[in-house]
């Protein structure tokens, strides 16, 4: 039995925004895989909920005429993991969605909830950072687009306003075409797991496939919010694929990340994973981009 004081099922996004404006205590619930846990814990006991669960306008994935990928925020992880458009264009993201929890959680949990929750361990977050995703927020004052790098303001905190709903996640054509990607999740078990570290690497190769035209390296749980190793990415632009390249990238990542010690994992252990996973993810991304990693 959940301690929910008030529950409103919105009929549309506009209706949800209106309901949120009418109740400043109200919080948004979609799949409920995070919110219900907090209610049960007592942290959100007696809460007022505005549900956007099941709104058709929030579900689905499409590719626009310009090649932009639009993922509606209410799309479940299992749908994302199996979506033909995503499997063709950004398979890394589909794979990342398949790493969340277990089958039941993936059936109910939504990618929008995963992002809005604002936690550094969210499985989709590092891939979305690597993909330079743009977040579409719809509120009382209309719709605005926020680049993902400006979305997170701290652990569990984002720029989303009380009356805003995340309606879509957009990925521009230039941010996926020509890239090979790889997401690695490190968990202490193979399912029902929160990431100890997540690493997403994307690589675009030079036409001769011998050098890095562009690298994107993103992490979850390597800092209080998901992050990109932008200095490292710049430093290896144009670098030839050599055995030393992976060492440079790993060291670059180590210089940029800011993991903390907690009872879940020490800083030293996370640093070891940052280093090793950068190598493995980048190596695989090079292969997925059509290159050869073992040169």
């Amino acid at each position: 039995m959940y301690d929910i004081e008030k529950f409103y099922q919105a009929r549309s996004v506009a209706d949800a925004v209106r309901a949120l404006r009418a109740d400043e205590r109200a919080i948004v619930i979609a799949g409920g895989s995070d919110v219900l846990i907090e209610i049960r814990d007592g942290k959100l006991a007696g809460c007022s909920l505005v549900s956007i669960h099941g709104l058709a306008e929030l579900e689905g994935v499409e590719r626009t005429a310009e090649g932009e990928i639009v993922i509606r925020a209410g799309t479940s992880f299992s749908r994302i993991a199996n979506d033909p458009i995503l499997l063709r264009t950004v398979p890394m993201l589909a794979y990342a969605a398949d790493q969340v929890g277990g089958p039941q959680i993936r059936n109910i949990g939504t990618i929008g909830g995963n992002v809005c929750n604002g936690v550094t361990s969210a499985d989709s977050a590092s891939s979305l950072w690597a993909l330079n995703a743009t977040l579409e927020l719809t509120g009382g004052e209309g719709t605005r687009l926020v680049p993902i790098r400006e979305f997170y303001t701290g652990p569990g905190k984002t720029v989303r306003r009380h009356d805003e709903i995340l309606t879509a996640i957009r990925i521009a054509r230039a941010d996926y075409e020509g890239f090979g990607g790889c997401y690695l999740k490190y968990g202490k078990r193979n399912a029902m797991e929160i990431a100890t570290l997540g690493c997403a690497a994307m690589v675009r190769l030079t036409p001769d496939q011998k050098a890095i035209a562009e690298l994107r390296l993103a992490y979850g749980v390597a800092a209080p919010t998901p992050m990109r190793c932008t200095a490292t990415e710049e430093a290896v632009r144009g670098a030839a694929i050599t055995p030393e390249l992976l060492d440079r990238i790993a060291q670059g990542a180590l210089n940029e990340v800011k993991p903390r010690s907690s009872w879940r994992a020490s800083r030293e252990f996370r640093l070891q994973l940052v280093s090793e996973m950068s190598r493995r993810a980048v190596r695989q991304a090079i292969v997925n981009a059509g290159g050869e990693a073992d040169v």
Partner: protein
Amino acid sequence: MGVRDSIKRVDAYEKVTGAAKYTADLMPAGALVAKVVRSTIANGKVVQFDLSEALAVPGVVKIFTCFDVPDIEFATAGHPYVLDKAKGDVYDRRLLNERVRVYGDDIAAVVAVDEVAAARAARLVKVEYEEYAPILSVEAALAPDAMPLHPGVRDTNLLGQSSYRIGEGTYEEAKHSEPGLVEVTGEYGTQTVQHCHMETPQSYAYMENDRIVVVTSTQIPHIVRRVVGQALGIPWARVRVIKPYIGGGFGNKQDVLYEPLNAFLTQQLGGRLVKLELTREETMACTRVRHAIHAKVKALARPDGTLIARKLEAYSDQGGYASHGHSICANCVTMFKQLYHDQRVTEGDGYTAYTNHATAGAMRAYGIPQSDFITECLMEDLADKLGMDPLELRLKNCMPQGYVDPSTGIHAYSNGIRECVAKGRALFGWDEKRARYAHETGDIRRGVGFAMFDYKTGVYPISLEVSNCRMFMNEDGSVSLQMGATEIGQGADTVFTQMAAETVGLTEGNVHIVSTQDTDVSPFDLGAYGSRQTYVCGMAVKRTGEILKGKVLDYASYKLKKPAEELDTEADWVVRRAGREKLLPIADLALEAQYSRDRAERLFAEASIDCHENTISTGCTFAEVEVDIPMGRVTVLRILNVHDSGILINPKLAEGQVHGGISMGLGYALSEELLYDEKGRPRNDNLLDYKLPTAMDQPDLEAAFVELCDPSGPFGNKALGEPPTISPAPAIRNAVLQATGVHFNTLPLSPQKLVEGFVQAGLIKEVGPNV
């Protein structure tokens, strides 16, 4: 038909379809809901409560605090009652405790009309404490100036202690007994884990005719009745306990958990129906856990591997209340001497100390997984030092045929440990793999490891072993079978059915076992624990079945006008003993016996067993692992348990029991550990943060058996319930040793611990930002 046949579980259909009724399924509508208010300190005293806000919550019926409960201390362990109270369990807790000894201790209870109101009120109870520094290690607990946590029962925090020295002289003297001895010393430790049975503890209670009825998820209904009576200070038969199907227990429900409090609440509320259901978090933090045991060990051997002497000092973390107490550590110390024979002397000392951790109690194999980790790490490290094959070292020293434990007098009436090793060695391809992985290099390495164990069957002579069984024949020739022994998921109802069918001469379809225990109706029994039921309770089924069969044959003799000695029963028929010719369907006999105007007779039987026997089961684990060194990850590629558990009553169920045990052992080896912060507060009392392995984390689990007939078992059988979980953890640890050369001496082999170990061993270069 009968024993040795893999018949389908008698409860399979009900459980798979969801038709089987568990406590929550039986709960009548309209129950009041109880919620325990838990301390937010680990060590201290409740000074006072402010209940004003909590009582104002709509729907709250009443709040009871530690100042409202009877002035009675009671013991919760699911042990038989001991007539000499001084020798029995330790009476050290009340229904609600004013003196707080664990984080989350039971200090008050809210009763409300629903869960929301109860939870709201529980959060609003304000408590003033006198707080003391928490004692969070055995070492701190046994320090000379440590505050005694239970001055009423012990002057210090030493709850229990046991010692033995078997052989001649001491370990120290043995060192110089001959030249050239090799010594290995080590410290090995096991962690705190929790049972994680699927169904959390739950019960409901009400009063009927001035008696308290408690329906509860327990392994030990008759013991629960006694402890409820003791805790409330009322005659025991004023309590009736009903145990429906339960969703696992693994020893946690071999403790009397919240039934006494639930009974007290209904008693105080005029007999109103009150339910008390724990959350997963409460179950993990506030019921029972497995004892963490830390040990210092030494071994002396000749260069050829002959063991000369060993010594064990074990320190066991009891947590806040005695529960099963020192029994677990004593068991741990005992196995150390049983499994291997030392030519000169074996010394063992065990200490159990109260701390402010969660209370430790019974958990599957009762101190032996801890003991086996310690014993088998030591043997492996000795083999490593001597450069011997680990199997050869063990075969040279392990329990001899005809072994009798010098302290307990327990006989190994059968001993198949050597057969287990031989069978597993061939099935697993040990020699070939051991050689193949002898010189692994690189980031990803493989290895194989081994561990063996022994385990007694039931609890005689340490505790009472009694069991009772009742059967009556129905008019259609079927038998109703009533046991006090409990089905807790292990398949007890099925094997009792097979035993009854075998003994009476029926097919299984004509045996109807009553699964539910009701202390008003069921025969007395102690319950499911100690791998005792197929052995001890099997004896009760066998004897009862023989009595009933005698009555059937007597009636058949009357009806067929043939001497009973010439008759027998088989598969629902009375047959001629010689030639097995079918003479009379038992169904016809039963109908006539019931309604005959010449000789009407109820065909029934009841027998009481006072078992004065025990015997030893053995077995071993072979494990193959792959270690990803830079990622600190162990993948178990293959794991095989071989068991010497006597004759298998139901081979398929036996295999299932082994699979479950190995699975539990995998978590113990690699990932499970309850963690506490510096205040004694559990950090990971939920199934996300506590890493119970999932189906995705396990290889295929393999089981094999050597079926030696144990002459003391009712059907040649001996313990199998607990043993499968004992040896996987040391076997995996030993496989990691072969793969990497690194000795990990504490459980679990978690990723961070592995990385730290590999950094220390120079297998990983330490990394960090450039400064």
